[in-house]
């Protein structure tokens, strides 16, 4: 079912009906369109505050009528050798906020969290972040060099890398600037833009530890420079402890080779750490005794504090959560039973508990975690309740297995001020109006 909640104009409805009638015979088509026009006229009149649903246009396919698709055949196999989502789901796409960046080549797009189920982000919807656009790299011409403080510098082909025993792990990846537009106030009118620099996939590849053992890191090797092969040659310094712990060198996501946007044919994945460290189009790992202090770990991805000093190497994505239904894109449409759902995640391990508040944080009730609860993966929470048109100030608060409790915005601002850009993981508030409309507000 389409989730578009805007009331389309009559012209748009007509266009949609014409599209939907494409597969009908000429007589059925005429009949469909005639009925549709009447329905559209009725709907346009009853549209209230943009709350009508576009897919309710035609009754021709509803009982007792036999729907159009029940009276004819559909397309056969391999019509679409690589399948796409239903054409009725065209609104489920990545989006950006153009004024954030100078150009789409060095920019970011957000995942439509409001439309997703479970914990896995489909490959085509994983948020994008590039510094020099997406390179098109043939796998057979890609190389990974490991060198520096090692016994044997190695150059790997993709074929070499895929010969190593592989692991597959479900991990989230999040840009540390997720939510960063809202340090000083609520600015974004949609979940996709407040929290969408966040995705979660099953990643397949080789633990970096295995490759380092293969090269033999010398005792003085303490840091690793990871570098991309794209035009930005993005580079980050990674402490050896992380590399030996859970860093992966991955070539596949959700069962297929990486998408070009996600680093095809090879990327680094630092689970639970700021997404920028998971360097895409990975071509080089240099082992050294000190960090490199490159642009992405000095000018950017450092957190400016109110006293003018700045935090460096702020790697971990701290415990965070957000309610994905309802949200501005998914308002409440009718009173009655309701499942409140959302996502929680932490770079420090597993989510242990999520609580929900209906009154802006005065009182809280526990939600339940549903489905898989995995280390450094998105975790879905749920609370079934009833809504009878009362206003809510809806919040979620996640607690991780270390006992860390997701902070309030006031607590974060008190320590960090309003100019640190990165790592805003505060409790988020949706205001639910008696009409069911949901808006982004901040409570302090």
């Amino acid at each position, binding site marked *: 079912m389409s989730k578009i*909640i*805007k009331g389309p104009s009559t012209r748009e409805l007509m266009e949609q009906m014409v599209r939907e009638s494409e597969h009908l015979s000429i007589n059925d088509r005429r009949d469909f369109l005639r009925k549709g026009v009447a329905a559209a006229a009725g709907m346009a009149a009853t549209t209230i505050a*943009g709350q009508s649903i576009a897919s309710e246009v035609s009754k021709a396919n509803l009982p007792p009528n036999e729907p159009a698709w029940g009276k004819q055949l559909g397309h056969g196999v391999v019509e679409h050798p690589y399948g796409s989502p239903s054409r009725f789901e065209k609104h489920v796409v990545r989006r*950006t*906020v*153009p*004024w954030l*960046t100078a*150009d*789409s*080549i*060095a920019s970011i797009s957000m995942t439509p969290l409001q439309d997703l189920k479970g914990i896995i982000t489909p490959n085509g919807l994983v948020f994008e972040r590039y510094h020099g*656009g997406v390179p098109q790299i043939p796998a057979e011409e890609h190389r990974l060099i490991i060198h520096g403080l090692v016994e*044997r*510098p*190695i*150059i790997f082909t993709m074929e070499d890398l895929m*010969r*190593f025993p592989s692991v597959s792990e479900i991990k989230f990846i999040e840009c540390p600037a997720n939510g960063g537009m809202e340090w000083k106030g*609520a*600015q*974004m*009118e*949609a979940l996709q833009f407040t929290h969408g620099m966040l995705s979660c996939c099953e990643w397949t590849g080789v633990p970096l530890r295995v490759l380092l053992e*293969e090269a*033999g890191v010398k005792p003085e090797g303490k840091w690793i420079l990871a570098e991309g092969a794209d*035009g*930005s*040659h993005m580079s980050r310094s990674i402490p050896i402890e992380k590399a030996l712990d859970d860093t992966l060198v991955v070539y596949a996501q959700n069962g297929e080779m990486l998408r070009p946007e996600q680093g095809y044919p090879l990327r680094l994945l630092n689970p639970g750490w700021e997404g920028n460290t998971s360097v895409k189009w990975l*071509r*080089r790992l*240099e082992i*050294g005794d000190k960090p*490199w*202090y*490159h642009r992405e770990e000095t*000018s950017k991805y*450092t957190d*400016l504090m109110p006293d*003018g*000093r*700045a*935090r*460096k*190497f702020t*790697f971990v994505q701290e415990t965070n959560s957000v309610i994905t239904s309802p949200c*501005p*894109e998914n308002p409440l449409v009718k009173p009655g039973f309701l499942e409140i759902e959302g996502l929680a995640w932490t770079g420090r391990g597993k989510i242990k*508990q999520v*609580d929900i508040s209906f009154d802006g*944080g*005065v009182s*809280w009730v526990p939600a339940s975690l549903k489905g898989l609860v995995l280390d450094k993966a998105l975790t879905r929470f749920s609370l079934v309740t009833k809504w009878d048109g009362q206003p809510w100030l809806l919040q979620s608060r996640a*607690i991780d297995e270390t006992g860390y409790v997701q902070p*309030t915005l006031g607590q974060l601002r008190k320590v*960090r001020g309003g100019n640190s850009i990165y790592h805003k993981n505060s409790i988020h*508030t949706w*205001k639910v109006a008696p009409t069911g409309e949901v808006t982004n*507000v*901040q409570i302090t």
Partner: protein
Amino acid sequence: MFKLLDNKLKNSLLAVAIGATLSLSGIAQAGKYGIGETATAKEIAGWDIDIRPDGKGLPEGQGTVEAGEEQYEALCATCHGLFGEGEGRWPVLAGGEGTLTEERPTKTVGSYWPYASTLYDYIRRAMPFTAPRSLSDQQVYDITAYVLYLNEIIDEEFVLTKDNLAQIEMPNQANFFVDPRPDVKNTRCMKNCADPDKLQIAGTLRGITPVGHFVEGADAPAASHDAQMEQEQHKEKARKATLKGESLAAHSSSGAVTLSATAEAGKPTYEGACKVCHGSGLTGSPKFGEPDAWTDRIKQGMPVLVDHAIKGFTGDTGVMPPKGGRVDLSDKQVEEAVAYMVESSR
């Protein structure tokens, strides 16, 4: 199963097993799996481009402010501004000293960056934006010197070298410290956690979020750079049409443009090289799809436009660097891209 084998076969299987064990232990010295070739010094040298604060990685050479000025104005100023002030939303490089504690800090090389080595490293690996890895080591030294000069970190006469770059002390170097998080401590309170009467509720700033996909009649930015540009162009056309007293309908024909084969061939070059500036009209460049910006230029004829694009041109509104800084493009590619822009902007 072994019972069925004769002794000869048994012995040979044993030999294979021992051989396998031996060769595995042999590999162990070079790594458990022995996968991957040893990288040669030459292979590594070509990719090993990184520089560290202690100067490790710096190539031989030196640079001057004077030479850097020329390079900077030709290759960098289009986006970063003549004095490092930044054009559009491109990064500001100079100034901002003393602003880090202000409401709106300006983080530049001089006001924020802790090490000068980062500047050399970054220019070498990623600049100029449209033509990364196209600069010689010499050019990088020159431009690095000039950007340091713009920030008043070195004076006009300073000669930047492999040996003195690491000695340069940046003003903000001492002000970085390692992540102390977790830095805040919330508790899992369940009842009476706040005074309801004291809650301050602030709504969302309206009109700056792309919400056209779910809010009817939203007059808000689009959700992609291209759509945003289209939206702005449409508004601009509507505004002009109103001024001239024309109805918009006459202008808003589908906008379909029939392109020549040359222009069609120029599209990828435009997308990859020219769009960065011509897509938005950055620093006075004629904006793609804006007839007003192109009409007078088109009158000069294609040969002139192509010549300017290839050799570079300084006009009243801005500077067109030779091939837009993309010296790797062939003359033919530039010609095709010009055709694409011209035919799409009539």
